[in-house]
């Protein structure tokens, strides 16, 4: 195999932050640090510090946002960096783009790194669009000549030609973002760092931006570090990926493996739930609810391309089970009700004793996203014998249905696969 050229080498990088306020205590710590330093000893605060887990309470004033990060990037590779909020992605990018230094370790690079951490940096509201293109371009490390060569392309790409001589303060926020992205898109660093820019602009501009990024990362053989929450775009764009958790790398390898590792590790996914004594009611005991793809295990991630089954296990004690039925209300992650479904007047009524009811949501019906089910057990068709909101939640992910064409989320809550044909009249 041909030896690949390593362009970026991250060696044992750690970053420590101070928790809480910077105030009078800081001066004390500073003095202590200085006192150790002049005696030639190691910084005493490097030995302490918690790993970065927001949910735990802190045991010391210092926290490790990153701990012992090690990876290499070869030339032309697109590395995906995935992780939940607070996993250390942004800190890592900040160190890579030289905004701050690591507390320990080092990073070696053979190329210029430029970042799209947040577009539009340094825009001055009083300057015109064109003046800002030059200013922003220079801030991002372009020379005047470089910008001059690309000026027309940038203006064209931004779609702000008409307003190019108007001060940026009169721009709508969307236009500002377009202009800013346009400048950044024409950067030509050896290593490009992209963070979450997918989330900007309207659908049309998003498509344009994504197309551009694909060009950058695929066509031009550029090295890209790509951070996103959108697993579909990570899957399409990246050649390998690392998963960060609490400031450490927990997985490193192929993109597909990394994405499923990440999705499985997500604590929000609660595809199955057993219910105990609290759910033993007068007329029934609720035992278990689980959601999974047909033919898959409960622990697996739920894909939108396969049937989704909702299984309800209920032990009915009542002697008149025909008076009971169950209804689910489905809400999306924003809490909007989407629809309800019920076993009333279906082929699966409740019987006395053990019940295992299965409801099948057809494949290619739900959008990717997180969903919540609320359970209502209805008695005599009118009053609720049992209600629990958001009794279970599950996350549906995009499969390869149309990856590569449009990675943003289509509008709407459901995405049914209707029947299309050619009319023959």
């Amino acid at each position: 195999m041909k030896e690949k050229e390593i362009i970026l080498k991250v060696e044992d990088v750690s970053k420590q932050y101070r928790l809480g306020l910077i105030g009078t205590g800081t001066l004390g710590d500073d003095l202590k640090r200085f006192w150790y330093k002049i005696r030639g000893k190691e910084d005493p605060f490097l030995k302490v510090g918690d790993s970065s887990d927001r949910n735990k309470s802190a045991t010391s004033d210092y926290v490790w946002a990153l701990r012992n990060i090690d990876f290499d990037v070869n030339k032309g590779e697109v590395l995906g960096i995935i992780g939940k909020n607070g996993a250390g992605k942004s800190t890592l990018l900040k160190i890579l783009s030289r905004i701050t230094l690591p507390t320990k370790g080092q990073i070696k690079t053979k190329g210029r790194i430029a970042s799209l951490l947040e577009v539009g940096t340094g825009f001055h509201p009083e300057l015109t669009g064109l003046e800002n293109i030059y200013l922003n371009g220079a801030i991002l490390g372009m020379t005047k000549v470089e910008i001059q060569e690309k000026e027309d392309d940038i203006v064209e790409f931004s779609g702000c030609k008409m307003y190019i001589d108007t001060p940026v303060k009169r721009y709508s926020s969307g236009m500002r973002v377009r202009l800013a992205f346009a400048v950044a898109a024409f950067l030509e660093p050896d290593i490009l760092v992209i963070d979450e820019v997918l989330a900007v602009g309207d659908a049309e501009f998003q498509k344009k931006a994504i197309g551009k990024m694909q060009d950058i990362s695929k066509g031009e053989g550029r090295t890209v570090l790509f951070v996103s929450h959108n697993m579909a775009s990570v899957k399409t764009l990246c050649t390998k990926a690392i998963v960060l958790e609490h400031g450490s790398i927990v997985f490193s390898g192929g993109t597909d493996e990394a994405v499923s590792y990440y999705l499985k590790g997500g604590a929000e996914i609660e595809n199955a739930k057993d219910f105990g004594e609290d759910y033993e009611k007068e007329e029934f005991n609720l035992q278990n609810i689980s959601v999974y793809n047909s033919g898959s295990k409960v622990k697996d991630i739920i894909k939108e391309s396969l049937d989704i089954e909702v299984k309800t296990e209920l032990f009915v004690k009542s002697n008149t089970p025909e008076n009971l039925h169950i209804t689910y209300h489905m809400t999306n992650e924003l809490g909007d009700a989407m629809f309800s479904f019920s076993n009333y007047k279906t082929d699966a009524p409740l019987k006395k004793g053990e019940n295992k009811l299965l409801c099948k949501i057809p494949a290619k019906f739900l959008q990717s996203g997180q969903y919540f089910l609320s359970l209502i057990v209805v008695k005599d068709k009118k009053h609720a014998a049992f209600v629990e909101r958001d009794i279970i939640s599950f996350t549906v992910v995009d499969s390869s249905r149309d990856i590569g064409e449009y990675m943003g989320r289509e509008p709407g809550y459901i995405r049914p696969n209707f029947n299309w044909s050619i009319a023959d009249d």
Partner: protein
Amino acid sequence: MSTNLKAKQDDNWLYTISAKRKLIDFNFKEIWQYRDLLVLFVKRDVITVYKQTILGPLWYLIQPLFTALTFTLIFNKVANIETGAVPPFLFNLAGISIWNYFKSCLTSTSNTFSGNAGIFSKVYFPRIISPLSSVISNLLRFLIQLLVFIIFYIYYYINGAAISINEFIFIFPLLIILMAFQGLGLGMIISSMVTKYRDVKFLLNFGVQLLMYVSAVMYPLALMREKLPQFAWLVNYNPLAYIIEATRFVLLNEGSFSLRGLAYTSLITVVIFFIGLIIFNKTEKTFIDTV
């Protein structure tokens, strides 16, 4: 990987980001690469300061002129400070112009980190570009003020005031540079302290005010030595006072000047500048964590 190849690879790293730092670690090649940014920053500062004002760049002139006028009325007419053969207004205008240059360099440089936190937290470029650009844009402002000074100079000259330029006029550019570097150096020290301790900001506000009084802006050095000999050391050892006095000496041929003083001031300036540079260099790498 063979060790040979490894060694070869290790050699051509473009740069290393590491926790270890050198005392002064400026990559001049890199700063040179960003020269266009410097120019654009200067342009931005000059263009945008007086946007949406009616008088626009006239504000550059109004402020020193009115300050000089006020000083003339208070210090010369009311308090009777003698300015020798030189018209008091011209005496004050010279002092204020050069003092203002120092002051604006100091205040804008000391604002480098806290004022640019937004940009600095997102993009990397050599941070020194930022204070350098304000020193240059302030220089342009100073030159405009100098032009006004020259106009008044000619006016007074035509009206028969006994003023003349000293033969040491050729050191005037040096005086300006010394002033700029003192403002820059002091500003860099303060800017670094402000990132951690905001107290310094308050100190700066009235500190500059007090500094003006001990910097011989509105009185000749000799007057201080004569009237308040016990405090004269404050002014004698103040490099700013020396530069201001020397400025008036070369422009108006009034006051005192010595090469020993010039050497002393230059030395202090270099020291301040390098201390500023070291502290700035140390701060720029991680200030974003504390700002």
